[in-house]
């Protein structure tokens, strides 16, 4: 489809701006003004058609199963969208007086408490996404050791880790060292032991990890770290697997983040916004970013009077309207419903795993939690993970996460989530079986996929070679 700029023609736009009604004013001196017109001149119906038809070239959870591992693409209840558009929330100014925003503050306060109950930690809702949570978590680590007067420079990250884990640590000046996994998909405790020394500030671990496995040495790792004086950071991106079943605090983590857009079902918005609340054990709570919503005798207020805080990390208080959706989600589910998330997510994933493991190579032979990783190792005729992922699109599903985790060659990471029906799981299984058959019998079909999508296979190399990042007419 054409970019909207191609429709621009001087004089088409009839969008009406009200009359100022105020002719008694100080004009801005000309030297500050521009008269360039960089915006398109199009009419409302063209804009509506352009974006309506663009949406037809997109695939979302509302179109079908979206088994993008690690991203927890579950159904986003429509009521939460309605709630997030209520003017008495969406229209509230962040700098308004506290007495005028008690409703917003209460939502944040309660949500933090719910997350606390679910994980056993104390929360700040300031981070705007998971990796923002990680970053502020790394800052907490840094501040903690500064306060302790210890110069520790290393953060350990398993080879299974999501890229944001090392990146966030590095942004805080830490040196990142990679801890290998063993063949069971757990952290290699022996290797870890060797790496632990007085320079290790912290270790980051996703729990369950990015292979979808609950690390069986978790408590041992936690104890090792703590004995070493190091902190243990839990990446909560996979909380969906354990919510209501186990608490991160009890696993031995000191710090964690939650991706509200994953476990608590706020929509992913084509890339965002999400929210990444940061949780810490009570002893570290004083380091949390400000402000913290507190409850005083005159009501809720934004507490900035926290001398040990790492400081502010967001223009205001994080992604409030995302927090509101998560709040609504938790209230709609209640304790039983929250536990049901994990139970059904794990059931669905294991059902897929059991059904697919005979068809595709399974690098780690174990039952999984909410997701699992296959690979293209045994594919014939040079069929790759990329080919498979493109062929899946032809069958009307979104594709799993591919080539992550990095240490599994040709990884295919599948997370159905708890909101998929058995019908759609079965349909996905049939498609994966069919693609396997094609790989053997008609490999070109897979290698030339996709064929039924709005565009054919897209070439990323051309894009990167001579990047065109803006439309230039």
């Amino acid at each position, binding site marked *: 489809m054409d970019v909207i700029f191609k429709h621009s023609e001087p004089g088409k736009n009839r*969008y009406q701006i009200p009359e100022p009604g105020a002719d*008694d004013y100080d004009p801005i001196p000309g030297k500050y003004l521009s008269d360039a017109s960089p915006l398109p001149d199009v009419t409302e119906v063209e804009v509506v058609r352009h974006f309506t038809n663009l949406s037809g070239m997109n695939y979302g959870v509302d179109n079908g199963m979206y088994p993008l591992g690690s991203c927890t693409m579950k159904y986003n209840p429509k009521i939460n969208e309605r709630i997030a558009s209520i003017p008495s929330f969406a229209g509230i100014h962040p700098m308004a007086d506290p007495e005028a925003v008690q409703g917003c503050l209460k939502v944040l306060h309660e949500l933090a408490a719910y997350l606390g109950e679910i994980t056993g930690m104390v929360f700040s809702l300031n981070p705007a996404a998971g990796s923002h949570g990680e970053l502020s978590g790394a800052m907490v680590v840094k501040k903690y050791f500064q306060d302790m007067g210890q110069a520790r420079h290393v953060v350990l990250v398993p080879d299974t880790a999501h890229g944001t884990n090392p990146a966030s640590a590095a942004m805080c000046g830490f040196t990142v060292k990679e801890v290998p996994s063993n063949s069971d998909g757990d952290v290699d405790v022996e290797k870890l032991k060797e790496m632990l020394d007085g320079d290790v500030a912290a270790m980051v671990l996703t729990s369950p990890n990015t292979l979808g496995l609950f690390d069986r040495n978790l*408590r041992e790792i936690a104890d090792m770290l703590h004995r070493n004086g190091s902190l243990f950071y839990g990446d909560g991106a996979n909380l969906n697997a354990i919510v209501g079943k186990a608490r991160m605090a009890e696993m031995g983590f000191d710090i964690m983040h939650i991706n509200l857009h994953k476990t608590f079902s706020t929509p992913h918005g084509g890339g965002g916004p999400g929210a990444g609340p940061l949780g810490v054990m009570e002893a570290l709570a004083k380091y949390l970013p400000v402000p913290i919503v507190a409850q005083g005798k005159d009501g809720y207020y934004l507490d900035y009077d926290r001398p040990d805080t790492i400081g502010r990390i967001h223009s205001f208080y994080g992604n409030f309207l995302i927090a509101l959706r998560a709040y609504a989600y938790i209230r709609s589910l209640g304790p039983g419903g929250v536990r049901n998330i994990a139970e059904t997510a794990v059931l669905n994933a294991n059902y897929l795993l059991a059904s697919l493991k005979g068809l595709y190579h399974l690098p780690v032979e174990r039952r999984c939690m909410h997701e699992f990783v296959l690979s293209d190792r045994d594919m014939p005729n040079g069929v790759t993970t990329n080919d498979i992922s493109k062929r899946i699109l032809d069958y009307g599903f979104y594709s799993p996460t591919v080539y992550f985790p990095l240490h599994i060659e040709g990884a295919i990471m599948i997370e159905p989530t708890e909101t998929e029906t058995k019908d759609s799981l079965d349909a996905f299984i049939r498609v994966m079986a069919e693609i396997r058959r094609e790989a053997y019998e008609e490999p070109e079909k897979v290698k030339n996929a996709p064929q039924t999508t709005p565009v054919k296979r897209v070439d990323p190399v051309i894009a990167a070679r001579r990047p065109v990042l803006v439309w230039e007419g």
Partner: protein
Amino acid sequence: MYTSITDKEKKEMLGVIGAASVEELFADIPESIAMKGSLDLPGSLSEMELEAHVGALGSMNRQVAGFIGAGAYDHYIPAAVDQLSGRSEFYTSYTPYQAEVSQGTLIAIFEYQTLVARLTGMDIANASLYDGATAVAESVLMSMRANGRKKVVVSGALHPNYRSVMKTYSWASDRLYHEVPHRAGVTDADLLRESIDDSVACVVVQNPNFFGSLEDIEAIAAAAHSAGAHCIVCVAEPLSLGILKNPGEMGADIVCGEGQGFGNPVGFGGPMLGMLAARKEFMRRIPGRLVGRTLDADGKTAYVLTLQAREQHIRRDRATSNICTNQGLCALRAVIYLCIVGNRLRELARLNHARASYLRRRLLDVGFRKMSDAPYFNEFTVAHERAVSIRKGLLEQGFSFGLPLGDYYPGMEDSLLVCVTEKNTVEQIDLLVSKIQDLVRG
């Protein structure tokens, strides 16, 4: 609940898995960790109970006639923005990894990048960052990566929250932070020039600045450039770009800031829209997603995420940033907004300015003092010895009149930062002024 597996299906599935119960699937969680009881959360609510409950919470907020900006601008949002961004193919998808079924998001973001680049006078723009504050912080880090210097010089007239965030980031990344105070609401050019030397990576200045005043960007950029430093211009009120000379023209190397004002609600401060645009030499150092043009297997134009080698999932600890999930939907809203309002944005900007100026004149008439004679856009600072009590009186009458600056600038307890947008009609302004008159007199 949003699950659907029936008991019959569960049995069947457990059969295929070879497990006796769902509990068994959690066997890897040690006894010592596994939760025994139930979570202590409030009981589940039906949809209509939930809506009523949340509605009641909403009514604990007070909706008032607002005259506050300060980084969040309450502009009118055309209905088409809600309708189109509310199409679920957009908002229930994620980062467009599978380009073949994500052209909708990709094209929209490509258009967003184009418009941000055009409006800021830069060559490129990324697909969004979290908000204005982190966009400033990321800009500074980008500048430092580019020129290898470690110190940032910041205008004291940059939004205080942005400065706080930058301080946090600077501390965390072991960078040096130096602040130059403002003089009467404008960055002190002399002090600024004095603070720039060849250890300085970049200078950060906001325009219009926090007090609403327009800065002399050309002079500041020249000062930065003369020491080999970058000039970073932060824009917190994006509508100002509709009428003011763009930062690129005035010498900025990087333009960053807040895009919320383009089609996104104030939403108690989030989600916002971090904008980041830069000259093309920053292309391979810019943080965040970038969408680029390419071809598909049939040779047709298509779009794809590009230059991913910059990003954390490839480069890991040497990435240009840790950002992953961004503010895509807010960027989508912004691009729809900019297409609907289109080239009338100038007219809208002019309206904002005219009404702001109208109110400012009225306020001076009734005894407020101006902070400076510097030109301004839709926001300005005024002072009155009884500012606090006037504000309080107005709040009781349903007006949220200006942001008191005492919390941010000690000594400015009498000052208010006042904003006017197209949502504030002249009638409303007149009413406000008459109420102020009553309060000043009374």
